């Protein structure tokens, strides 16, 4: 295997983030008194540099070919995901600043683990081989289990970490079993090699079992029904900035490898896994929306809402037969990242003000106590429900179209019905904010959290009002049909 300087350059964002994580770890180990704000600022700076590195690579000529013996690939698809993931990490740092600092836990380890999770996610989307994808997934998962349990003196946080760890380890086992069956049949693990081999080979039931197990393992990570049971407990129990991160970051990575493995590796078996995806997608939308409707706890409601959104996104996976499906899911994920993070960031805001944000009543009269927060929350809720002119509408539009194009019109109709249903529970929060009596003094947000929320809101509105340039840009990020 030959490694050139250009290969190392393509690996630079991952290397840099690893070094940054080690540095944060050392600083907090050697300087007990290092202020939490300082560590957060440093983390933010490093993530910013990593964003710059990835942005530089987006214009770099050497990208696109597999490197490191075919293990690693930096194509436009990977670059899009890396940028979005790094932005979600930066937003998480902004949302964490006052939250983690108040707790009696050392902040340095928190930010270091966040960066290690980021390294795993970045590796995942560039994985071009089943082994490198799996190892990166474990790196991401292991670090996120610990983040879930970071508030270890709170029993709910510990419960979240334990449930996430046990179920996550089990799903990793299922995934690994599927990978081993595929490897046993094919004798190779590079995704393009697999596709080439299967092109000429008759399919066997054993291979389909392997593919099914891989699918089950990945559906767990994106919290699709019937692999969703961990989600409400983990989202409720984890520290809220971590919940906000979980609802976007690791999910982005899971969608990315779902796309890579199934779009690049198993395109020949689309007819076999297509129907399963359609059924899972329908079940996820219906269950997620109905369960969210029945919830009174806001964090759990938003957890079910993000389950429902996984159902919508699976419609894009269905469309993987054509480039349009992949394109649709990229557009949707761009919108989803900002609107879903924004909603959770506002829950963080209420929690820093002493509200548990457990019940909808905590949002009562928010409009009178902090108008900006209420309006911004309304934007996110509208976007989640898919009302134009917000980013959520554009995303859903592309997903529904891709389901129609794949020949699943019934699924698209069901998705529209379920989106209408979702309005009920989103508007419960909106009604509480604007029409309920307020009591108490105005609430002021910290600068960092304000910045995070406003970035999300700006992205949600801009992508919604002027989608054309973004949509065109994303078209260039689709993996070329193999």
């Amino acid at each position, binding site marked *: *295997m030959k490694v050139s300087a250009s290969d190392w350059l393509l690996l630079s964002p991952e290397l840099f983030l*690893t070094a940054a994580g080690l540095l944060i*770890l050392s600083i907090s180990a050697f300087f007990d008194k290092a202020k939490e704000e300082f560590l957060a600022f440093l983390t933010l700076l490093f993530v910013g540099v990593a964003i710059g590195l990835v942005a530089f690579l987006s214009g770099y000529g050497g990208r696109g070919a597999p490197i*490191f*013996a*075919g*293990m*690693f690939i930096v194509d436009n698809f990977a670059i899009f995901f890396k940028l979005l993931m790094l932005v979600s990490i930066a937003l998480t740092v902004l949302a964490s600043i006052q939250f983690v600092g108040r707790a*009696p*836990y*050392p902040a340095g*380890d928190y930010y*270091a*683990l966040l960066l*290690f999770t980021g*390294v*795993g996610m970045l*590796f995942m989307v560039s994985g071009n081989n089943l*082994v*490198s994808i799996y*190892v*990166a997934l*474990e*790196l991401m998962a*292991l*670090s996120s*289990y*610990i983040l879930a*349990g*970071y508030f*270890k*003196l709170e029993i709910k946080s510990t419960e979240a*970490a334990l449930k996430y760890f046990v179920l996550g380890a089990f799903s990793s086992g299922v995934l690994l079993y599927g990978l081993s069956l595929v490897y*046993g*049949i*094919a*004798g190779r693990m590079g995704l393009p090699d697999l596709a080439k081999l299967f092109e000429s080979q008759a399919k*066997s*039931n*054993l*291979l*389909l*079992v392997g593919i099914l197990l891989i699918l089950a393992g990945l559906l767990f990570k994106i919290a699709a029904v019937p692999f969703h049971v961990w989600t409400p407990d983990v989202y409720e129990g984890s520290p809220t900035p971590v919940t906000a991160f979980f609802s976007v970051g690791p999910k982005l990575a899971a969608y990315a490898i779902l796309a890579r493995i199934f779009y690049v590796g198993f395109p020949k078996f689309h007819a076999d896994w297509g129907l399963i995806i359609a059924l899972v997608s329908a079940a996820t939308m219906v269950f997620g929306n109905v369960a969210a409707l029945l919830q009174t706890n806001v964090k759990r409601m938003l957890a079910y809402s993000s389950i429902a959104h996984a159902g919508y996104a699976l419609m894009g996976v269905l469309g993987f037969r054509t480039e349009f499906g992949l394109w649709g899911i990229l557009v949707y994920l761009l919108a989803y990242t900002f609107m879903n993070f924004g909603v959770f960031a506002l829950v963080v805001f209420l929690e820093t003000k002493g509200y548990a944000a457990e019940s909808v009543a905590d949002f009562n009269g928010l409009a009178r106590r902090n108008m900006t927060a209420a309006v911004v929350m309304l934007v996110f809720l509208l976007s989640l429900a898919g009302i134009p002119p917000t980013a959520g509408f554009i995303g859903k539009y592309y997903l529904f179209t891709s389901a129609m194009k794949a020949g699943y019109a019934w699924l698209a109709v069901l998705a529209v019905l379920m989106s209408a249903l979702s309005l009920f529970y989103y508007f419960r929060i909106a009604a509480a904010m604007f029409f309920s009596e307020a009591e108490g003094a105005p609430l002021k947000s910290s600068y960092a959290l304000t910045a995070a929320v406003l970035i999300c809101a700006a992205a949600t509105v801009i992508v919604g009002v002027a989608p054309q340039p973004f949509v065109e840009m994303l078209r260039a990020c689709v993996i070329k049909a193999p």
Partner: protein
Amino acid sequence: MTPRLVFDVAAGLAILFACVMVVHRHPVKSVLALVVSFFALAVTYVLLAAPLIAAVQVIVYAGAILVLFLFVLMLLNVPEEVRQTPDRPIHQALSAGAIVAFAAALLASLRAYGATRAAPSAELPPGDLAPVARLLFSDHFLSFEALSILLLAALVGSFVLARREESP
């Protein structure tokens, strides 16, 4: 005894003791059952012409990791598990049925597959350490390095979770 018979006995023991490990209420006995299961697995690896994996299985899993488990269990003096919720017979029957159905489907597809073709040519000559090492540090070195970050994250994590807070 033919190798085939040895394989079947070893595989059966591995499955049997894995079940014992799950069902048994005493944690130390569960660990001991797991040791037996791991040794039986090592025997099947030998018969599959993978002595290196068998050795790793015995030394690392049965030897190091399970001994560590035993240490922790004995240090913490974990008592016998008391089931608080009553057993749910319908859930258990359904899960058991699903496991059996899945195992049967898997076995059927494995047999159907095995009947159609010879085993795929192995990448490595059996039992040789050097090619494994060469692959690990050439083609797979990126995954290898990612694993080292993973271990570091696990180390930091266990430290974070186990450390006593001075000012709660």
